C-alpha cells in the first residue's frame, strides 16, 4: 500500500502514475487537484524495497501534461468542456527523469507512491550537492534556489574545461562564461588552493563587449543584486583587469591601441622580431585549415628552425635581429653591429623580404638549407601566404621595447582582437595559447590555474582539416586539464568544432540553439525534452550538463554588474579602483 505523507501540509504533490511502467530512468506523476509541477522542478519518491528498506528516488520534471480522461474522440473535448454533456475529468501529470536513487539500489519507484517536492536537504540530494567536492553556485533554478557545478570537474581534479554552445545574437555565451569566471574568482572559499594567482585570458572577438568588465553597469538593479547575493557574491565589476589591443596601423612611431570606444587603460601589444622567432610564431601565420593539405607545413617548419639558428640581436636596437649563418660563430645573447649592407629586421615586412632572398630569390637558385627539397611551387605558395600575412598582421611585429601581453599584470587579461583580420586573430590566439601552455608545460604543475575564454571556437579548431592552432587546442583539451590550463570554449554550433575538443569538456553548457543544430549528436547529453526547449531558451537561461549529475540542469544567471557596452557604463558611480 502506498505510504502516507509524513506531514500533511507539505510537499506532497501527487502520486507515481500506475497506468504505465515506471523505470529507473523515468516515471510520471499524477498531480493532486490543488498542486502543480513545472519543468525543472525537483521531486522525491520513497519506495519500500523488499529486503532492503526505503529507497528514495530523486528526479527532475521534464514535461508537464494534461488530458481529459474519458474522452476517446477529439470532439469529446467539446462534449466535455463545451456542451458539458459528457462526463470527463481533467487529469494533469508530469514526467520525471530520475537523477538519483539513494541508497544506490536501482529499482523503479512503486506506482501509487506519494511524490513530494524536493526542498532543502532533499533538493541538495536530488542535485548531488551533498556529494560534490566543491559545489560552486552557477545560477538559480526555477525555484529560485542556487544550482551548482562541482568545481572538481572544472579545475582539472576530476575533469576540466567548459564548452558553451548557442546561437549568436542573444549574447549569452560570453555572458555566461564571464559570469562563471566572476563567481569562480569571487569564491576562493570554494575554489580553494586554485584561487591563488588564478589567471584568466579572455579574447574579445566581436564588438567591444568585453572592454568594460571593470566598469559598473548603470542598468544593474536591486533585483539582480539580490540574485547575485543569493549566489553568495557581492556583485561588482571585475576588480583586476588589463586590456590589450593591437596597435593601430599607419600610426607612425606612436603605438596606440586599436580600439574604438575605449582608450584609457588599454595597452597596445606587439611582438619584436626576436620574440617572434624565439616563440616560433611563424607557424601561426599558416593557420588556414587547408594549408596542411599541401607541403607548406614542411617548409614552414624548416624555415622556423633555421630562423632560430640564424637570428642575432642587434646592438642598440632592442628586439631587432639580423640573420647570419651560424658558422660565423655567434652565440645566444650575442649582440652584433650590422655589417654594411646587411638587412636589419625590424618588422615582419623586413623578415619576409629577407626570407624571400633565401627561399625564392629572383634570378638565383633557392638556398637548400632553407627550403630543403620542397618544390618550387610550394615555395611560391609559402611566400604568397607570408606576403598576405605581412599585409594583414604585419603591424603586430615591430622592434623596440617589448610590448608583449603581460598575463600576470591583472587577474583578467582581455585581448581585443576584433579589429584584426581572421588571419591576425588566429595568429594572436595561437601565440598566446602557445605561450600559456608552454609556461605550464615547463613547470608541470596544475597550479596556479590558467583559464582561457575563447569564443567562435569553430574558427580556431574546426572539425575538418588541421592547422597548428587546431592541434594546439586539441592538445590543451587533452592535456591541459592536468596542467591547469582550462579552456572555456564557446561556439554557435558544436558540430563544427573538432570533436576531440568537445569531448574533453567535462562541463557542457547550451543556450538557445538552432532547431536543426539541437538535433545533432553533439547535444546527445540533453534529454529530448530539453532539446525541444533549447530552441526557446531566453537570454540568461542556460542548460548545464556535468559528469556528477546524469541529467542536464536549466539555470538562470543574473544580469552582470559590469558594463557590456559603452552606453551601459555608469559614469556617476565612482570607480573604486581609480588611482590605484
Amino acid at each position, binding site marked *: 500500500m502506498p505510504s502516507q505523507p509524513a506531514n500533511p501540509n507539505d510537499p506532497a504533490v501527487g502520486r507515481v502514475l500506475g497506468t504505465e511502467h515506471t523505470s529507473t530512468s523515468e516515471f510520471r506523476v499524477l498531480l493532486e487537484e490543488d498542486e502543480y509541477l513545472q519543468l525543472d522542478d525537483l521531486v522525491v519518491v520513497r519506495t519500500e524495497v523488499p529486503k532492503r528498506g526505503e529507497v528514495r528516488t530523486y528526479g527532475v520534471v521534464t514535461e508537464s501534461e494534461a488530458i481529459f480522461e*474519458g474522452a*476517446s*474522440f477529439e*470532439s469529446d473535448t467539446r*462534449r*466535455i468542456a*463545451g*456542451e*458539458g*454533456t*459528457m*462526463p*470527463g*475529468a481533467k487529469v494533469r501529470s508530469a514526467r520525471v527523469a530520475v537523477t538519483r536513487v539513494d541508497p544506490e539500489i536501482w529499482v523503479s519507484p512503486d506506482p501509487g507512491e506519494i511524490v513530494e517536492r524536493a526542498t532543502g536537504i532533499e533538493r541538495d540530494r536530488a542535485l548531488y550537492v551533498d556529494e560534490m567536492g566543491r559545489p560552486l553556485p552557477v545560477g538559480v533554478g526555477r525555484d529560485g534556489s542556487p544550482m551548482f557545478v562541482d568545481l572538481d570537474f572544472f579545475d582539472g581534479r576530476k575533469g576540466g574545461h567548459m564548452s558553451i554552445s548557442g546561437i549568436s545574437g542573444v549574447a549569452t555565451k560570453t555572458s555566461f562564461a564571464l559570469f562563471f569566471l566572476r563567481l569562480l574568482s569571487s569564491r576562493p572559499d570554494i575554489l580553494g588552493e586554485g584561487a591563488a594567482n588564478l589567471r584568466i585570458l579572455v579574447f574579445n572577438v566581436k564588438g567591444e563587449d568585453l572592454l568594460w568588465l571593470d566598469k559598473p553597469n548603470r542598468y544593474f538593479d536591486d533585483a539582480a543584486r539580490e540574485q547575485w547575493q543569493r549566489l553568495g557574491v557581492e556583485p561588482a565589476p571585475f576588480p583586476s583587469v588589463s586590456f590589450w589591443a593591437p596597435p593601430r596601423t599607419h600610426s607612425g612611431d606612436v603605438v596606440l591601441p586599436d580600439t574604438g570606444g575605449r582608450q584609457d587603460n588599454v595597452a597596445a601589444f606587439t611582438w619584436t622580431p626576436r620574440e617572434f622567432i624565439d616563440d616560433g610564431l611563424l607557424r601561426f601565420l599558416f593557420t588556414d585549415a587547408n594549408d596542411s593539405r599541401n607541403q607548406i607545413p614542411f617548409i614552414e617548419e624548416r624555415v622556423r628552425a633555421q630562423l632560430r639558428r640564424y637570428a642575432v640581436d642587434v646592438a642598440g636596437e632592442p628586439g631587432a635581429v639580423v640573420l647570419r649563418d651560424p658558422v660565423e660563430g655567434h652565440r645566444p645573447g650575442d649582440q652584433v653591429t650590422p655589417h654594411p649592407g646587411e638587412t636589419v629586421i625590424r618588422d615582419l615586412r623586413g623578415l619576409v623580404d629577407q626570407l624571400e632572398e633565401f627561399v625564392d630569390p629572383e634570378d638565383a637558385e633557392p638556398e637548400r638549407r632553407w627550403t630543403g627539397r620542397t618544390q618550387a611551387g610550394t615555395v611560391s605558395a609559402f611566400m604568397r601566404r607570408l606576403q598576405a600575412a605581412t599585409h594583414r598582421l604585419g603591424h603586430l611585429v615591430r622592434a623596440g621595447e617589448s610590448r608583449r601581453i603581460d598575463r600576470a599584470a591583472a587577474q583578467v587579461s582581455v585581448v581585443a582582437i576584433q579589429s584584426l583580420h581572421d588571419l591576425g586573430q588566429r595568429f594572436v590566439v595561437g601565440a598566446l595559447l602557445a605561450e600559456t601552455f608552454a609556461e605550464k608545460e615547463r613547470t608541470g604543475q596544475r597550479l596556479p590555474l590558467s583559464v582561457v575564454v575563447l569564443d567562435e571556437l569553430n574558427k580556431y579548431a574546426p572539425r575538418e582539416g588541421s592547422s597548428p592552432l587546431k592541434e594546439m587546442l586539441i592538445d590543451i583539451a587533452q592535456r591541459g586539464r592536468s596542467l591547469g590550463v582550462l579552456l572555456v570554449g564557446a561556439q554557435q554550433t558544436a558540430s563544427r568544432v573538432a570533436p576531440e575538443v568537445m569531448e574533453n569538456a567535462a562541463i557542457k553548457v547550451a543556450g538557445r540553439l538552432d532547431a536543426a543544430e539541437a538535433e545533432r549528436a553533439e547535444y546527445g547529453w540533453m534529454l529530448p525534452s530539453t532539446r525541444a526547449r533549447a530552441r526557446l531558451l531566453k537570454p540568461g537561461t542556460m542548460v548545464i550538463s556535468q559528469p556528477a549529475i546524469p541529467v542536464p540542469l536549466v539555470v538562470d544567471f543574473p544580469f552582470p554588474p559590469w558594463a557590456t557596452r559603452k552606453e551601459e557604463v555608469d559614469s556617476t558611480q565612482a570607480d573604486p579602483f581609480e588611482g590605484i
Partner: protein
Amino acid sequence: MANLHVESWSPDYGSPYESDAALAEPERVDETVEVPGKWEPISGVDDGISEVAFVDGVRRVDARLTLDEPGSPVPGLCGSYAVGAVLWNRSIPRSEVIEARVSRLAVFAAGKGAPIPVVSPELSYRSESVPDSDPAALITRFHGAMRRAEGELSEELAMAGRFVVSDGPINTMAATDKVGFIKSHRAPYLSAERSAVIARLGVAERTPLFLIGRGGTYERYSWYFRIAQLAGGHSWTGVVRGEVSAGLEKSRALTIAARTTAIIPAVASESHIDPRAPQNLVPIAALERELRRRLGDPGYVYRALRSAIMRTTPAGVT
C-alpha cells in the same frame, strides 16, 4: 466445501440475453389521455431545468462455474454489475459521474449454492441460487439484480429531488420525476392510425401521451419522440420512447414529457462515434464506459477468481 470449478470456456460464451419484464405480454393502451382526436406532432418545451441525472447499469459474466454435486453437475456463474449516474449540469455546463456502485454476484441453478472464496476485499461475491436448472435462468437472475440496482439508484436520486433519465424502462412506479428512456421498439403500442404520426415527427417533437397498462402493476404514461434526423434513415430513425409513472399527476407527466422531448436531442450521439447512435445518449455511453472500467480488468478478475477457487477445491478431484 463442495467441489467448485471454474469452466475453462470463456465467460462470454452463451447467447446474450435480454430481459424486459414489462414486455412479458401485450398490455392495454389508452391513446386518449392527452389528445382524444387526431394526433399531430407536438413540440417539446425546455423549461430550463438546470440538472439532469442519467442512470444506467452494465453487467459482465466474470466466469462460468460448475458445482460438482452427486448426481449431476450444477451450473453457476460469477458476474459483476455496476450501476451509476451522470449529473449533467446545464448551467455550467459540465457533466460528472456522481455515483458508481459495483456489485458482484454468484448464481447457482437448481436451488444449490456454494460460497465463493473472497479473492480480495474489492473482489468478493455474494451467492444466490435459482430453483430452475436452465442456465438461461442464471442470466435472468443476474440481469434482474442489475435492473433492481438501477431502479434503486434512480429512485434515490429522484427522491432527492433530481430529474432522472434512466436507460431502459422504469421499474419502480413511485410518483417521482424519473423518465425511462427506451431505445428499441419491440412491442407495438399504438394503433396503425395513430402511429402514422411518428413518421411526421421532427427533431424534438413528440406524440401525445398514451397510457400503458391501465389498472396493472406497471401503469405508466408514455410517448414517442424524435431525438435526431439521420440522412437516409427510415421513418422511425432517431425515434425513442419515454415513459413516466402513471402515479404522477397528468400535468406533471406532460411537463416532464415536454422537457424530455426538448432537451434529449442535445445529448444524442453521432453515428461516426457511437454505433448505437443516435439513441445511445452521450452521457450514458460515457457512463457505461466508466462503469465497465470500474468492474475491473476482466482477465485479471477471471484469473484471480480461478486461482482462488482452485485453492479451496481439494486437489485431485475433478
